[in-house]
């Protein structure tokens, strides 16, 4: 598979006009004379968008082309006012690069970037407002996009979505794309082909695409889940087709999120002849190395660098570090929690408890009911042995349920402080032993048989913890038990 990802460049105004790019404005309110392609109107490049594209190219470890050029892609559609899209066909601003993509089950793959170019978005056709008419909203018309084209290095639906996730984390960290897929900020054209075993390796050796089978392009897939579903369906469809003696036709397909299937949109024969040619209204884009170097010198910390730092600075496991570093807000949250505390414990609490909770209820970090300060406070209570890890989970639950609560106050209020007073624990242990002489005998017997950790000991720990309302320090319970049982 190879993906073409369209990422909307974060910019206040459009690629070639001064119109606002604000999302959610009234239809046709972010539209200028240029966007409507009135006679005699001319495009003028938005320099900020150029800088953003260069920044993204640097973030993708890619070659920045000091010479690039805008071309016209000609076709008729009501939401394309000029009758052509201004794009970069022959000379894109960014050339080859590569990124490391971590897969959920551990391994990391390298995905090559073929190119990145800038282009205009089209407007939006609205077909369902009126049975006999189509309405056009030109707010998006002329908005700056980056099309990021991967090499055919992606070999499974999971890899495809992981690649887009990684791409998203990079552009968001760079501040070059907001990455809000629900708003169409980031969407992917997924190219899928299937080949016989060994075909891909032959392609890698020779660079000859004929080993890869005929590809189909699935247009405009706009969520990670849909990318996986679309790729999965399409690959199966092609395999089934071939196994039934059929042939895959090169075509453009659409993914139907309702049914999870892809269906044909247009065949290769119906493909447009876009009649690309250099846009004579625009001069070629010439950058200086100094300009590029200056942008490079001011790049923010990228997810990979952050991940490396989390491993070296905090001693996190690579996977946890990757999860935390992938998104700037999560990374920042973690660092706030970890500051001056046991970083591994902080990472555990952030990834396991907090992210687990957020994922379960499909919440964004911004909507988290628990702040970094609260979580930090909770970890402090564990660290200074005020509460046990188990109690901490209960307190965490209360932090979710209550507004702006202080974990220390909750512990105090609900009497959850850990009991480390050995006298009190001894008393509890004595009572349990007295009430369960059979169990005492069993532990002793198991120990005598050579079991260093008799199973029945666990039972005693459980009883003791239960009797103390979970507040007893488990280590202290263990030691006192061993001593009293003489093992």
């Amino acid at each position, binding site marked *: 598979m190879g993906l073409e990802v369209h990422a909307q460049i974060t910019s206040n105004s459009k690629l070639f006009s001064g119109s606002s790019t604000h999302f959610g404005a009234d239809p046709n309110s972010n539209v200028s004379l240029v966007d409507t392609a009135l006679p005699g109107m001319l495009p003028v490049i938005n320099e900020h968008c150029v800088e953003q594209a260069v920044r993204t190219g640097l973030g993708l470890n890619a070659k920045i082309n000091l010479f690039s050029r805008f071309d016209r892609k000609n076709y008729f559609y*009501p939401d394309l*006012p000029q*009758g052509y899209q201004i794009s970069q066909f022959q000379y894109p601003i960014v050339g080859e690069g590569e990124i490391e993509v971590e897969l959920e089950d551990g391994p990391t793959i390298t995905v090559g970037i073929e190119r990145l170019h800038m282009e205009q978005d089209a407007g939006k056709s609205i077909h369902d407002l009126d049975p006999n008419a189509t309405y056009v909203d030109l707010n998006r018309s002329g908005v700056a996009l980056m099309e990021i084209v991967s090499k055919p290095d992606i070999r499974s639906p999971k890899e495809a979505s992981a690649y887009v996730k990684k791409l998203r984390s990079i552009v968001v960290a760079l501040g070059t794309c907001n990455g809000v897929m629900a708003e169409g900020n980031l969407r992917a054209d997924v190219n899928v082909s299937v080949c016989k075993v060994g075909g891909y390796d032959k392609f890698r050796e020779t660079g000859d695409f004929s080993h890869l089978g005929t590809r189909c392009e699935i247009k405009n897939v706009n969520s990670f889940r849909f990318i996986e579903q679309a790729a999965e369906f399409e690959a199966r469809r092609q395999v089934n087709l071939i196994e039934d003696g059929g042939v895959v036709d090169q075509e453009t397909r659409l993914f139907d999120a309702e049914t999870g299937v892809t269906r044909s949109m247009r065949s290769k024969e119906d493909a447009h002849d876009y*009649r690309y040619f250099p846009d004579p*209204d625009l001069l070629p884009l010439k950058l200086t190395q100094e300009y590029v170097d200056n942008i490079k010198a001011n790049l923010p910390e990228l997810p990979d660098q952050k991940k490396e730092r989390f491993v070296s600075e905090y001693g996190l496991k690579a996977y946890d570090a990757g999860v935390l570093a992938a998104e700037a807000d999560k990374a920042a949250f973690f660092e706030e929690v970890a500051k001056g505390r046991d970083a591994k414990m902080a990472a555990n609490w952030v990834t396991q408890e907090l992210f687990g909770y957020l994922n379960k209820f499909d919440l964004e970090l911004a909507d988290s009911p628990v702040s970094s300060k609260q979580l930090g406070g909770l970890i402090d209570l564990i660290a200074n042995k005020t509460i046990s890890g188990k109690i901490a989970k209960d307190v965490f639950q209360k932090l979710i349920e209550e507004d702006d609560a202080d974990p220390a106050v909750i512990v105090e209020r609900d009497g959850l402080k850990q009991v480390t007073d050995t006298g009190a624990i001894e008393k509890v242990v004595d009572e349990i032993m007295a009430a369960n002489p059979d169990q005492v005998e069993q532990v002793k017997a198991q120990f005598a048989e050579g079991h260093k950790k008799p199973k029945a000991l666990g039972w005693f720990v459980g009883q003791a913890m239960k009797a103390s309302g979970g507040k007893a320090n488990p280590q202290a319970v263990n030691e006192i038990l061993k001593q009293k049982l003489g093992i």
Partner: protein
Amino acid sequence: MSDLTKLTLTDAVKGLKAKEFSSREITQAHLDVIEKANPALNAFTEVTSEHALGMADAADTKLAKGEGGLLAGAPLGVKELFCTKGVRTTACSDILSNFVPTYESTVTQNLWNEDAVMLGKLNMDQFAMGSSNETSCFGNVINPWRREGEDTQLAPGGSSGGSAASVAADLCLAATASDTGGSIRQPAAFTGTVGIKPTYGRASRYGMVAFASSLDQAGPITKSVEDAALMLEIMCSADEKDSTSLKIETPKWTDSLSNGVKGMKIGIPKEYRVDGMSDEIEGLWQQGIEWLKAAGAEIVDVSLPHTKYALPAYYIVAPAEASSNLARYDGMRYGVRQEGDSLDDVYSTTRAEGFGDEVKRRLMIGAYVLSAGYYDAYYLKAQKVRQRILMDFEEAYKECDALLTPTCPSAAFGLGEKSADPVEMYLNDIFTVTANLAGLPAMSLPVSLDKQGLPLSLQVIGKALDEDTCFRVSKVIEDAAEFDAKASNWWS
């Protein structure tokens, strides 16, 4: 009062400043002449009388206080190609017949900023595609000139035929025009007027209906070389709304145009001596050479070896760009829409009905030369030729400061004489397209009448950004030629 229309722009501006007459007077004088002449000449598509008098009064108020810009109170005509705020702008095509811009082109705005007065909009070939003005949806302009003893209607040239005819017939002091392959110079030559196309990028294309973006340039058609310099220095400006606009100062050519040609080297390109060129044109060219020699210039023979490929290259590049530039006229947002049963139907009917035959012909040629499989053979090859032509000029300019050539291979032809054969019509651009392809400044000025009594012109092609030399060479020829013939006033 009608004498006011005979003035040059320069003299009119002086007279207005000196309060010898008012802007209202000279504007009204022109409106009166237009009223009489326009039914016969069809030069104006719309006369904005009220608008003109309002602008004239505003200019008079300033002039009375000793204020006012460089063109204060001077009535001008505007080619239909320039968008004018609140005044219909059609590019003389049915598809834009209802289009009223809410904005002003930079070139015309520059004129209004100097307090000039707009008399109205001037007829042209549809979307500036044509050399005879016969493709206008308003019907063709009639050339004020006639062959001696004949009343055959002659073409005013194109595409700026309305601009040229109106200046020739004293319907305005000067006019804006545009030149993609000769659309200023050829009609100027056909009507005994002066026209200059500046270096590509001198004049902003903002608000000028696009034909071929890499070739289009605005320029004036005027009654004298000095008027042309005055108009051009006001029309040109660095404009951030046009990416191809040169971000440089516009020189004050009016200050230097009389500096003469002493010591200049003038190149005579041998490739412009084409087969079948008349003795009269040949003689005129020689005459020009003699005048320049007499004024102290040195004449050198130069070669522009790729000239013969210019016309084919032009008729690939220009239609290619046009096919894309005119895609926006789809009936969706403005202009005239024809209803249909499907989207494709709306598109095809709107465009089939809205565009004239010549426009359709060029759009088809353009789409063809850009299409997959033909791009390399046509468009790319044409771009390479274009590069060669530019290199030819650069080579020639190592030997000389400017080139002198005829503007056209013939005098004005009769309406309909060439419209049956597009290729014969295209051949009219043979001496003018090279300057567009190379982006160079080029000027046409009338020199003499042929034996049928029609004006003939010479062309001066300068180095890039060296309009100054064009003006100086032209001024020397103008002074020597003493061309003061006017079309007989048969229309009044």
